[in-house]
């Protein structure tokens, strides 16, 4: 995490390549700890991690919860429903209320871009963006990098085809930035109506043809939401699946397939692909846990520790 934003993880832009490598190395060390019979580490004992979720989320919330608990931190969950959020309290006031408990980390998911930045400015806690609108989801990008590196043994020069609704996807945006940062190639494959104008400026290429995925090492499938049909982004799910669905015939041997979940089987991804040996979907979930542990660890311990030192700290722990 860069000097200026050292205390937060608001977006992939906060990270240097060294930061990414350090976090992924820490995650690998932590993954080994998960093979033990007693999986809990005392590292963050006495620390408080607050999960502030303004959008429903199963996997991200449970992943952060478990990550904090595995490191022995205390955790609290505040959901948009059943809290003062529903009574019209402003985000700043909610943040200030939480700040009274002196949390060490606030993990926030919010439907609107910029919400984590506002919380970061309003409290003394380290803020982790767990998804803000269509903007960023940096821990998803990190767990995807981790998954790719574990599966292929490298990141530099790896080619990743990201297929689907890029326009509405914070996952795609963060992942492209992260891939560019570590020297991988990203190509976005989608109908023109689901590609943001000007997205090539991030350093990726774009294609409107599913044939393009044949050249990639990794096929990364994005969720296609039914409500996009109402706004006429594509004429029908049927036509979308016919043109862009990732089917067994379109995946070549040796490729791996990823998906951030939840999957719409039979829409953007064929069930036979989702359940094949090429699929890394469940690996991604496991990676999510260790990468989020690594992010919490990285934020709450001296940043910039060489990975060897970090690993030895973990061993002692």
């Amino acid at each position, binding site marked *: 995490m860069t000097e200026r934003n050292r205390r937060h993880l608001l977006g992939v832009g906060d990270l240097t390549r060294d930061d990414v490598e350090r976090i992924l190395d820490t995650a690998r060390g932590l993954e080994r700890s998960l093979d033990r019979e007693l999986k809990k580490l005392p590292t963050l004992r006495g620390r408080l991690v607050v999960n502030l979720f303004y959008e429903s989320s199963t996997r991200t919330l449970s992943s952060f919860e478990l990550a904090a608990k595995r490191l022995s931190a205390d955790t609290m969950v505040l959901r948009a429903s059943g809290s003062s959020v529903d009574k019209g309290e*402003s985000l700043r006031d909610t943040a200030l209320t939480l700040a009274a408990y002196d949390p060490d980390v606030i993990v926030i998911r919010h439907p609107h871009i*910029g*919400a984590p930045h506002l919380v970061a400015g309003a409290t003394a806690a380290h803020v982790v963006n767990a998804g803000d609108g269509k903007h960023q989801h940096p821990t998803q990008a990190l767990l995807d990098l981790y998954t790719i590196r574990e599966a292929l043994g490298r990141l530099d020069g790896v080619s990743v085809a990201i297929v689907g609704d890029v326009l509405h996807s914070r996952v795609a945006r963060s992942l492209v930035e992260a891939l560019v940062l570590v020297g991988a190639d990203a190509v976005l494959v989608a109908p023109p109506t689901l590609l943001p104008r*000007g997205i090539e400026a991030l350093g990726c290429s774009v294609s409107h043809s599913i044939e393009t995925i044949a050249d990639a090492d990794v096929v990364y499938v994005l969720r296609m939401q039914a409500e996009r049909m109402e706004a006429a982004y594509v004429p029908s799910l049927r036509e979308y699946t016919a043109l862009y669905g990732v089917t067994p015939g379109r995946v070549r041997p040796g490729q791996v397939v990823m998906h951030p979940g939840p999957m719409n089987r039979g829409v953007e991804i064929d069930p036979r692909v989702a359940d094949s040996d090429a699929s890394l979907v469940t690996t991604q979930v496991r990676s999510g846990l260790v990468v989020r542990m690594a992010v919490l660890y990285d934020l709450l311990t001296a940043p910039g520790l060489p990975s060897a030192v970090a690993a030895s700290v973990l061993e002692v722990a």
Partner: protein
Amino acid sequence: MLACRNGRLDSLTIRARAIDPVAGLEGPAKVTVEDGIVTAVESVSAAPEGLVLAPAFVDPHVHLRTPGREDEETIASGTEAAAAGGYCAIVAMPNTEPVVDTAAVLQSLVERAHEEAVVPTGFTAAISKGQRGEELTEMAELAAAGAIAFTDDGRPVVSAGLMRRALAYSAVADRPLALHCEEPSLSSGGQMHEGRISAELGLTGWPSVAESLMVARDLALAAYEGRPVHLQHLSATESVDAVRRARAAGVRVSAEASPHHLCTTDEVVRTLDANVKMNPPLRTEDDRRALVEGLLDGTIDCIATDHAPHARHEKDAPFEEAPFGVIGLETAFAALNTFLVRTGEVPLATILERMSAGPARALGLPVPRIAVGERANLVLLDLDSEWTVREDGFRSRSANSWLLGRTLTGAVVKTVADGRVVFAA
């Protein structure tokens, strides 16, 4: 019809470099004002370094938030801000609560301006009842009650049919239409300029073509009906081009650009600071340059602040939840001087003309001049004075400035409006 409170007419003498592009005045001068009237303009050998005396500014586009949101601005606070910004006349938009769409509401505003306006203030009325874009307002009665122009500012007149009727009927009222050009089916949900940076941030784009398409439609209708139009807060290259072509073809069109569109770009949206969220949005460096080109060749004949006060708690929200708009009256000259004049992009005289005579002509208001026998409408500027824009430094009731924390060069030293000294630093 401009209204302000009565006060004692002042007498004063100012020695400075006088610049009045309309009167052809440029050089060190001693200007004498007696009982509010300019009685002498004498050439002198030298004037204090950096001091410039110019016709005071006219802002064709201000939101005074009255009636309805007096917590954000009042006629008193908004005109205090205008005085501090060097303005001798401002024109308020009708998108208030309630909307200014009846003579009764308009008259009550004019009466309040007579009681509390520090600077002469004009009011516009809506084109359509409730600004709903369905039925025309009673334009003749509103004009008789003092409406300067008609506008649904804040939103476009979506129906081409209604716009045509409004243009035709505005001849009866003999007032111009001021148009907010935005095709909502293209800009819907838009948070910032659609381009490289919106793609990067994931903010929904508000594309240039949503403005330029409506500009083209409204210019075509204005040409067809043979009526003048005033286009508000233009932001895109294609809009400037369309105005240039239309004027060459004989359409009577005036056009505004705001200091923020002239001075900065969508790059600053990367900060996700809600104080750089405005409608139309900040656009690219190419668009900014096109606006500057338009300013230089006269295609853009007015600089308008689109002063849009918002309560702090409303702007202090995630970017996507925050309302559009920034204040601008108190920083307009300093921003333009800092970012356009001192960089050599635009001559000072052009800025002064586009801030005064240009907007006055566009809306049919008296053109401020430095000339013997004229009511004094003067602004004294210090071109070299540096100051930092601070949240607690505004006379406006709101502080949602895109320039907070920035150091600007150039300050208003004194403002004389309608013969009265309304501001002295």
